[in-house]
């Protein structure tokens, strides 16, 4: 799968045949490549498609078996001022028609054919008459009934009692059909429940969680950018004693896994009175060794001449940093910003520990989602609507700034 010039041969015929082979191989190769890529893409996308669709379902639709993707609801019609549910059923004359459920729980029997007991049908007892004779099915003696299907009558064995629904046509009151309601085919329409979103926002202050998350994210991103730019500049451009030792020690802290800090940080939050406040999610997280490292690497690459010219003008470092270095460093800043954005938006274990009260007003999205997910009472449709709300902003930012996300990954790889 490369674009290369083929080696020249003397015989053009030979070359042509080579090219044909090459083309064939490339087509097969490309087909295979696309097949694999599409298969993986489908696996990556399906859960999100499922998410979006489930967010638009009714609660009962989410529990349906077999599961379906599209949100559907039963079609209904107005009959004498009341909503009736519509079903798609086969009537006595063999045609399939749209009927409504007129009566539930009609006493019925499960009848089996005498010659083949595996073929059964549920039919109301009002259309069947005991013949008085019996037959043996699976070693048990069961009564034989004369069962009416429209104009026809058949002798069938009654296996056990059951219940069916009486279905009628909206247009012709004489058209009637019987079937087990649970397994009858419902007439359905795709019907997205957009109200799920407004419901989830009203329920449990979800809008407040969204606002809190936005606020925390803005402050973490802004704060980290500020400290990283300051530190990166000092480590790249100011010569002071012990600089390299401090730098190595600071960068070494990248290796400290966060889990080892959870307990003491929580105790610190207790001491400061920051438990159950958004501040506990912001202030400890605006000092980031990785960010400082990233900014330093970028600043090192900026030519010295720019700075020296400014020094001659008598500008102080502070001014030089913000007037000259920062405007030149947008790629690095954007990369760091996306990194911190994802981190702040999605962090879970720390909010779980530090925002552990019962007051939903200081929840962030991850905690609100987790709380919601633990509630048996709420249907999955509402939980999924909440998930949609929580991923829509990262996805939008990703679409707008894809380059920086990928760059962020690439730079962390070089690290």
């Amino acid at each position: 799968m490369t674009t290369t010039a083929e080696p020249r041969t003397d015989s053009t015929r030979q070359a042509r045949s080579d090219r044909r082979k090459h083309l064939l191989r490339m087509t097969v190769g490309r087909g295979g490549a696309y097949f694999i890529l599409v298969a993986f893409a489908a696996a990556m996308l399906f859960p999100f498609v499922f998410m979006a669709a489930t967010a638009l379902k009714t609660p009962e639709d989410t529990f349906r078996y077999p599961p379906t993707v599209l949100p559907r609801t039963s079609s209904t019609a107005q009959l004498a001022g009341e909503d009736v549910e519509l079903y798609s059923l086969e009537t006595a004359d063999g045609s399939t028609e749209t009927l409504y459920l007129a009566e539930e729980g009609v006493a019925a029997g499960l009848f089996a054919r005498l010659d083949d007991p595996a073929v059964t049908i549920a039919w109301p007892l009002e259309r069947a008459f005991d013949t008085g004779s019996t037959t043996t099915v699976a070693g048990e003696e069961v009564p034989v009934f004369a069962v009416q299907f429209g104009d026809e009558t058949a002798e069938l064995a009654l296996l056990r009692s059951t219940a069916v629904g009486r279905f009628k046509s909206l247009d012709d009151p004489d058209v009637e059909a019987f079937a087990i309601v649970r397994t009858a085919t419902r007439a359905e329409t795709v019907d997205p429940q957009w109200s799920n979103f407004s419901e989830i926002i009203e329920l449990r202050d979800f809008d407040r969680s969204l606002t809190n998350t936005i606020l925390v994210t803005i402050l973490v991103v802004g704060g980290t950018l500020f400290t990283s730019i300051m530190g990166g500049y000092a480590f790249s451009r100011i010569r002071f004693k012990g600089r390299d030792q401090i730098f190595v020690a600071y960068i070494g802290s990248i290796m400290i896994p966060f889990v080892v800090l959870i307990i003491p940080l929580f105790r610190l939050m207790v001491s400061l009175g920051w438990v159950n406040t958004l501040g506990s999610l912001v202030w400890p997280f605006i000092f980031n060794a990785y960010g400082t490292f990233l900014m330093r690497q970028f600043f090192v690459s900026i030519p010295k001449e720019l700075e020296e010219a400014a020094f001659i003008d008598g500008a102080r470092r502070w001014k030089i940093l913000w007037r000259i270095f920062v405007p030149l460093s947008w790629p690095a800043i954007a990369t760091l910003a996306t990194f911190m954005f994802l981190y702040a938006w999605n962090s879970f274990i720390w909010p779980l520990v530090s925002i552990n009260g019962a007051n939903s007003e200081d929840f962030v999205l991850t905690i609100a989602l987790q709380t919601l997910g633990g509630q048996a009472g709420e249907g999955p449709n509402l939980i999924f609507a909440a998930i949609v709300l929580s991923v829509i902003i990262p996805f939008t930012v990703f679409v707008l700034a894809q380059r920086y996300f990928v760059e962020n990954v690439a730079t962390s790889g070089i690290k």
Partner: protein
Amino acid sequence: MKRKLVLLFAILALVAAACGDSDDGDTTTAAPGTTAAAPATTEAMADVSLRWSTRPDNAEEAEVYRTIGEGLAEELGITLTYEPGDNETASYQQKLLTNLSAGTAPDVFWIPGTDIADFASRDVILDLREYADGSGHSDADFYPGPMAQLTTEVATGQPGNVLWGLPRDVSTFALYVNLDLVAEAGAPNPVELEAAGNWDLAAFNEVVDAVGGLGGEIRGYGQSNWWGPFGAWINAAGGGFFNAERTACALDSAESIAGIAALTDLYTTGSVIPYGDDPEPPFRAGTVGMFQNGRWATPGIRTVDFNWDVVGLPSGPAGPGNWLFWGAYVVNADTANPAAAWELVAALTQADVQAQVSASGANIPSRVSQDALDAFLGFTPPANNQAFLDGLSQNPTTEGPLWSGSWPEFSNLMGTEVQAVVTGATSIEDYTANICTATASAFGG
């Protein structure tokens, strides 16, 4: 220009941050600090501000509590802040303990009956006896089972002159029945069987088999995997978790084993929702015949689109056996306003508040009064509310803590062992031999 603007914005935002809400600083900095030495009867009630919390079973119930809180704030003349907890079964109490250690817990909060001893022995809840004595409160107004636990001394594990709190409500198990499935399967209606006095294990198994026989995704029965559901089987067989003094394991008694054996039998041969899977979603989807749960499940079930009702648990070899579940409002030992907190506890458990909560469908009043019970019967659907009252009146075992030992540890260990035997990972013989040694460390003291 642009940068200065941003800077200005940032600074002003920080200032507004601190001050946007003048109450905020007070609630965070004035966390419950010192324990008041004596009951401050002269507290200026208008300045008193209390936070309280419960574990609501659903969003509607959280709204009910919020409304109740607003009413009581007016009645008591204090500022009340309601904080609904999430309803994860175990983490609610653990979060409370963490907040108690951080000094950020509410002044008044609800805890399940099983956790009273744990909280009391950690010294994080207040003995309310001296406040109660002067207030016209009588222990006899409530179900005696919960009150016996609420008046137990930590040191001795014996009844004493203490009061740890007042029960919010009580509950018990019933079976939620999908009547459409039962009719389709041609099985006898359990509600009618119960009315005729024929609702025993054999009849129960018959219905499970009949409904399960419909095939496909249909299952006959489902129950959850925490201690209550399997405990009900032990109770119905005449067994129990502990000995009568609640000081040692009784899970290996012949009766207790009979209960677990019956449950294991059902799960290995019957058509059931796999043990450990939440049976509520499939029940609500209409694919489960019977579903064992407490009154708290009723509001959720009310939204389903099939015909349903409730029926009592089938009576076991030792007759009917069920749970009396309960939880209590208790007071944070570090509260700044203990007297006001007691008044709130008393107000939250008064008859009309309990009626308000019960109307939402999830609870049964904890006061023993015919009026309350009569009112409860009217909160339909389900039509057969009597099933819950029967569960409470026919020899239920009261949910209760371990005064000499650790209930959370016991329930964890026991749950793991029972799960193993019910899912077939261990044999009933091994279970019998090991269950009391496996849970012994919970009594370690």
